[in-house]
């Protein structure tokens, strides 16, 4: 049993969290007895094959899904309070932009719905950061897939969230765009917020993360928690270093082991 006294720290604390889905097809344990701590400003990837519960874990951290057992706290307080305090920013696999809003208006959406339209200067700066300032009056239909995902990232950052939750944000893109956006994200992430990054790409996880948490399937649990000691600032060229390749090999072995 974990009491509330154990969760007084800063950042994300996941304690004994399980998630059980019940359907007509039967019971499915998506996440089983997971403990995880993410310190403020840390970039953590959840890496694993499809169906290892990494998305469910992410959604429980962000308060979109209720754990069956266990607790998630943010800065020592329940998730619901963090949601009310708007501490989360979400990026999903699909950009889910509104077709009737321009790029700028899409990036403004969350500020709009919570009545903070006055902060549009930050949105313009963010569009600059993600390289879309020339497209702020375009509609999503006029953009490429990579550009749409950049808008989704700007939209998530518009609220200046303490914790950025990304659920396979580049998985729907072509390989070249995907690599480029990964490198761009290195530059965009300023270390001022934690990132939880769900991916099944080993290279992406090593490139971006301070820690890579490897998960296994049925039931989804954590099998390894690897610190990536590649100094920052990093750029795309670290991918050709021996250290990078060593991490890749190690993670691949872990995942193969998980599958075997």
């Amino acid at each position: 049993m974990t009491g509330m006294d154990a969760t007084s720290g800063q950042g994300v604390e996941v304690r004994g969290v399980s998630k059980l889905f019940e359907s007509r097809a039967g019971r499915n344990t998506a996440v089983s007895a997971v403990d995880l701590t993410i310190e403020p400003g840390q970039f953590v990837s959840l890496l694993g094959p499809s169906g290892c519960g990494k998305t469910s874990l992410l959604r429980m951290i962000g308060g979109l899904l209720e754990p069956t057992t266990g607790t998630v706290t943010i800065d020592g307080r329940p998730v619901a309070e963090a949601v009310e305090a708007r501490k989360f920013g979400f990026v999903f696999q699909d950009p889910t932009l509104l077709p009737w809003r321009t790029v700028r208006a899409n990036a403004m959406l969350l500020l709009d719905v919570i009545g903070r339209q006055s902060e549009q200067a930050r949105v313009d700066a963010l569009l600059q950061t993600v390289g879309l300032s020339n497209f702020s009056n375009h509609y999503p239909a006029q953009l490429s897939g990579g550009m749409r995902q950049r808008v989704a990232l700007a939209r998530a950052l518009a609220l200046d969230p303490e914790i950025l939750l990304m659920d396979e944000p580049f998985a729907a893109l072509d390989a070249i765009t995907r690599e480029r956006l990964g490198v761009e994200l290195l530059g965009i992430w300023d270390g001022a917020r934690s990132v939880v990054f769900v991916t099944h790409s080993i290279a992406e996880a090593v490139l971006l993360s301070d820690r890579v948490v490897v998960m296994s399937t049925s039931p989804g649990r954590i099998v390894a928690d690897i610190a990536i000691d590649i100094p920052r600032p990093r750029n795309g060229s670290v991918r050709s270093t021996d250290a990078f390749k060593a991490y890749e090999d190690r993670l691949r072995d872990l995942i193969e082991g998980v599958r075997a």
Partner: protein
Amino acid sequence: MATDGSERARRANPRSWLLPTGFIVLLIVVWQLVTQHTHWVQPYVLPQPWDVVTRMTQDPSMLFGSFRVTLVEVIVGFAIGSLVGVLIALPIAYSPSVRNTLYPLIVASQAVPKIAIAPLLVVWLGLGWTPKLTVVALMVFFPVAMTSVQGFSSVDRNLIDLLRSVHAPPWQVFSKVRLPHALPYIFSGLKIGITLAVVGAVVGEWVGANSGLGYLLLHANSMLDTTLLYASLLLLVVMGVVLFALMEIIERVLMPWQEPEKPMPLTS
């Protein structure tokens, strides 16, 4: 803005309206020639198009007076029916139990032939405007309700989650996301509804009326006055087509981001 340009070019393409217009003109010319120069069909079966037009100019006050009566029934009944349709769609889209409770009733209400219950409506509501408006509204509300439910409930789940994750107020989610997302769906229902509204008004007038194009149609039929019958029919068709076009114009003005040729759900 490349997309905008090509879209405008496509809309303005003269061939898009030349072909259907030309075809209709051709049909009318053939019809005129056949009825004027052959004796294949009797005039009381198929009058000459020209006679129909002259009939309209001979008796404009009767025909256009009737037109106005029916038009008011169509527009007011359509407004009531579509308002009820959208409003009833909201609780259905938001609550599964409301959905399960109301769906069978709504479908059943639609399975009842309007022509069969129209006399009952006259018994209940008298001979005035109310039974006609009720028939029109009953015809309109179903497609509007169905497409609205689809529109309100088909918002991307991730988008709803995104809004949940920032604790967005429900009203903001509705007005900024659900309603604009549902608009194209609602409009496909409204476009089906507006044509059904004309049918509804005619049915309403058949059962108990002393004015309107439906009434005139019935009257002309009983007198074997085929020219008048065709003149009334023509006006009904014009009314339906113009109202439909009007809906399309409103749709494009409200939703410039929407492709003009959107497939319409629920039509077959």
